[in-house]
């Protein structure tokens, strides 16, 4: 290969470019035109370049670099291997669309000045890229914190609103509790050698007890960032608070850095998983996925709904990770590779379609200034471009063919079907239950997405002001189109994508799908053999389109194509108003009723005698009251007890010192 040029140099160049663009933003603090039309598009080009470098880096040998920043004797070790490169590819692909959209999105007069947002945004991007490349605990933690802080500042862009302050504070709190666990995990991994590079951690042979401790700490720490139950609590608060491109970046990419960390620790630093780790991940993943899906169905705020849907997808990803580690623990590398491919594929898919959906809500928010589903409706007529692109995202998020969401779900279900060969009978019994759970979650996701799209874009406008909604501008359209194309292409070319992913399972579990030549040709995805299972999105799409064309031509030729426009019939009821449509609450009601024990609901039901009848249902997260408020109360009690010591009088403090001194003297004498 070319010795003068390594992919890692390219990636570092992009990171440097991002930081430089961010600093430019500070100098052009209120020059909106410069920021929108020069800085953000340039940054999007850098994202594309990053994706290109990462694409080159995945199949090549790992590159290392040492950056002499930070403390003396403690430089940043960076390493670009296949796993890092894949997540960098994800970052590049998703952020290219998000950044170009952001250029059209950030405007004057919304909290933080645009130039400052530009700085925070680019620091956030650069920090995520560095987290993915860090090769020692120190660099990792510094970049991890940089990522958390910059995203906190972005979440609190509208920092004058108390709700947003609260959401930001909660996010910061959970992020730091997670960071502590990650730090402890690295502490365990270095096994008293005092050397915190990942290269050293890979060499250590931990006892099963300490390895398990490290795994559980990583699961907790990274789970706090990814939103695994019960640490998901910040997600539905922070996502609606943040500006839409930031929500897209956080949900689409930042959650994946946590998945990256979990994979890095489980499969790379700890090299051999123990079988029950996988079971823990499967159980937590299923609980997270079901919880996210069920709560998404009950939401009435469009961005909260998407936040819960992200929780659901993270659950599915964690389940795939668990399954992969179960297979890896039982030395079944082909199956581990299948599950891991499903997991990585779903990470990529979720990054693309969830970013697309968040950006779609951003356009709706800009056009209508309304986030509540109950006040939207009928926007397809006024915003056809946003509606069409969002529809693709919705189909992908519902996991339906021929989009990308279906491919990863298909791979995940396939990997569940192979578990018959597991030696452990209890696991064998559990696995169909997990498979059933995945099927149920996927089906509820479909329900949620129909609600999301139908209530926002279809029907009649629920408010009169919506008729003035305008479609997205040029830069916003470009961003939406980029991500839509991603949803379609990732869905249509699964074998190509799996070929790109392949070096990762090969490196981590010793076998890849494409490497063992069992993935089919470009047209037909067949992870084992064509007799075993196969799926071809291109043929499905073409066959459907051909049948549509056949039906259209035949109907119009044999009969006619006449259409008459009239008032809607609606069983002959003439006084139809927009208020008679299902509200968002109404559409979610069946799910709320079926899963009632899961929710904490406050209902205000009108009686027949109310002069101003009022109906209201507030759905609350049960973890908030059941877990977090209790922890807060306990902390309060403990600190009040500790507070008894503080009297504010110097003589009492002197007494404490005296008692301490005497006790210590007594102890040393004894």
């Amino acid at each position, binding site marked *: 290969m070319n010795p003068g040029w390594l992919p890692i140099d390219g990636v570092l160049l992009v990171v440097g470019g991002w930081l430089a663009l961010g600093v430019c933003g500070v100098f052009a603090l209120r020059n909106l035109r410069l920021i929108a039309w020069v800085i953000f598009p340039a940054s999007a080009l850098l994202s594309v370049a990053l994706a290109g470098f990462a694409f080159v880096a995945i199949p090549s040998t790992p590159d290392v670099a040492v950056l002499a920043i930070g403390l003396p004797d403690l430089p940043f070790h960076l390493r670009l291997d296949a796993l890092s490169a894949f997540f960098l590819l994800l970052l590049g692909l998703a952020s290219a669309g998000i950044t170009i959209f952001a250029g059209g999105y950030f405007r004057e007069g919304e909290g933080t000045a645009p130039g400052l947002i530009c700085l925070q945004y680019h620091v956030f991007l650069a920090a995520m890229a560095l987290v993915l490349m860090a090769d020692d605990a120190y660099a990792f933690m510094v970049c991890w914190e940089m990522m958390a802080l910059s995203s906190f500042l972005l979440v609190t862009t509208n920092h004058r609103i108390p709700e947003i302050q609260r959401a930001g504070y909660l996010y910061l709190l959970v992020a730091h509790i997670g960071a502590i666990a990650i730090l402890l995990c690295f502490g365990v991994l270095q096994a008293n050698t005092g050397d915190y590079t990942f290269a050293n951690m890979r060499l250590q042979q931990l006892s099963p007890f300490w390895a398990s401790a490290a795994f559980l700490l990583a699961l907790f720490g990274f789970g706090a960032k990814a939103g695994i139950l019960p640490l998901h609590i910040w997600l539905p608060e922070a996502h609606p608070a943040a500006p839409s491109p930031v929500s897209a970046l956080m949900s689409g990419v930042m959650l994946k850095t946590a998945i990256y960390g979990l994979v890095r620790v489980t499969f790379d630093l700890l090299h051999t998983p123990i079988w029950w780790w996988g079971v823990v991940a499967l159980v937590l993943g299923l609980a997270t996925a079901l919880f996210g899906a069920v709560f998404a169905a009950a939401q009435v705020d469009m961005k909260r709904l998407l936040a819960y849907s992200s929780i659901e997808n993270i659950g599915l990803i964690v389940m795939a990770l668990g399954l992969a580690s179960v297979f890896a623990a039982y030395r079944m590398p082909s199956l581990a590779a299948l599950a891991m491919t499903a997991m990585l594929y779903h990470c990529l898919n979720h990054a693309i379609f969830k970013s697309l959906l968040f950006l779609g809500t951003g356009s709706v928010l800009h056009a209508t200034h309304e986030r509540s589903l109950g006040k939207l*409706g*009928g926007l*397809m007529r006024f915003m056809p471009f946003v509606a069409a692109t969002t529809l693709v995202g919705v*189909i992908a998020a*519902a*996991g*339906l*063919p021929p989009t990308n969401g*279906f491919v990863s779900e*298909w791979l995940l*279900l*396939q990997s569940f*079907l192979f578990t018959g060969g597991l030696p452990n009978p209890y696991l064998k*019994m559990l696995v*169909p*239950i997990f*498979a*059933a759970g995945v*099927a*149920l979650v996927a*089906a*509820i996701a*479909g*329900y949620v997405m129909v609600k999301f*799209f139908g209530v926002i874009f*279809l029907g*009649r406008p629920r408010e009169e002001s919506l008729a003035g909604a305008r479609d997205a501008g040029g830069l916003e359209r470009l961003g939406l189109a980029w991500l839509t194309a991603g949803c379609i292409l990732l869905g249509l070319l699964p074998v190509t994508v799996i070929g790109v992913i392949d070096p990762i399972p090969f490196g981590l579990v010793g076998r890849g799908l494409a490497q063992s030549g069992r993935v089919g040709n470009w047209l*037909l995805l067949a992870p084992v053999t064509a*007799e*075993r*299972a*196969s*799926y*071809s999105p291109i043929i*499905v799409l073409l*066959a*459907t389109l051909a*049948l*549509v064309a056949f*039906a*259209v031509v035949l109907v119009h030729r*044999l*009969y*006619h194509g006449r*259409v*008459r*426009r*009239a*008032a*809607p*019939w*609606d*069983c002959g009821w003439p006084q139809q108003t927009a208020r*008679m*449509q*299902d509200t968002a609450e*109404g*559409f979610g009601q*069946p*799910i709320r009723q079926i899963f009632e024990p899961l929710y904490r609901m406050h209902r205000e039901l009108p009686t027949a005698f109310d002069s101003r009848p009022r109906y209201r249902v507030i759905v609350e997260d049960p973890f908030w009251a059941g877990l977090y408020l209790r922890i807060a109360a306990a902390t309060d009690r403990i600190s009040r007890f500790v507070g008894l010591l503080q009297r504010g009088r110097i003589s009492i403090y002197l007494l404490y010192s005296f008692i301490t001194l005497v006790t210590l003297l007594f102890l040393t004498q004894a």
Partner: protein
Amino acid sequence: MNLEGILAQLAAMLVALMAAPLLMGWVNQWRALLQNRRPPPLLQQFRALHKLFWKESVMAHEATPMYRVAPYAVFSLMLLAAMIIPTLSTNLPLAPAADAIALVGLFALARVFISLAAMDIGTAFGTLGARREMLIGFLAEPAFLMVLFTASLISNSTSLATIVENLGQRQLTIQPSLAFAGVAFTMVSLAENARIPVDNPATHLELTMIHEALLLEYSGRHLALMEWAAALKLFAYSCAGLALFFPWGVARENDHIALLFALPVLAAKLAAGGIALAVIETILAKMRIFRVPEFLATAFLLGVLGLLVHLLLGA
């Protein structure tokens, strides 16, 4: 892919297109007979479709392209689904493109289209229908998937052609896992095809309708396509059931003698299935909509039980 395969595929398409309304008419005839009414002619469905295609299509002022695209999309998806299920022969060039999981995906995509189209105009009944359809779908879909998984595990494949070939070879014994799956499948297909006890295809009663509420605004050729799609769905589900539980008589690749008998055998099986459906619809009463989730949750649990039984007992 060879000429024979393409012909088989075209034959499967034609059979699906023609047999679907016939099956619907057959079920209606038997239902009328069992309920002491004079039955409509067997070809009544064709006449109705022909009439609808000639009528002009009336659309609401508010209708968006979604509303116009949906009938074609739903019709094509149902036709594609019917084409990939082995009915006459397992030699279908399109079958490898979509396995059992993708089949469920196709049905789900059609459901999403039909529900979104029903929400498009923004009438009270349309959104009501969409909500109920999705309610049934989100429970029926995983249950159907569990049934397919049981069959997949038994034959070690999710490809429908391989499943039929494998199951067709076994002895005529009752496997416990398939028995569970069969009950689950029957319940799911009653719900999915808007049949009693879940929905009543014969009424437009506001409080109970599900499928009809979705189609309320449609007229003319769009309605015809939706009705045909519903018939195709019934046909596809019937064929899926026959393929999983009565796979005998479907011709394998290069088995020309069996191919001769395949059509009469299919007709006989469908006729028997249609009578069974009419009997079920006659002896059962429609249940309240709030009971439907329980009904479908039972089907889901039975499906999971079937899967468990197979994994634990290997039967």
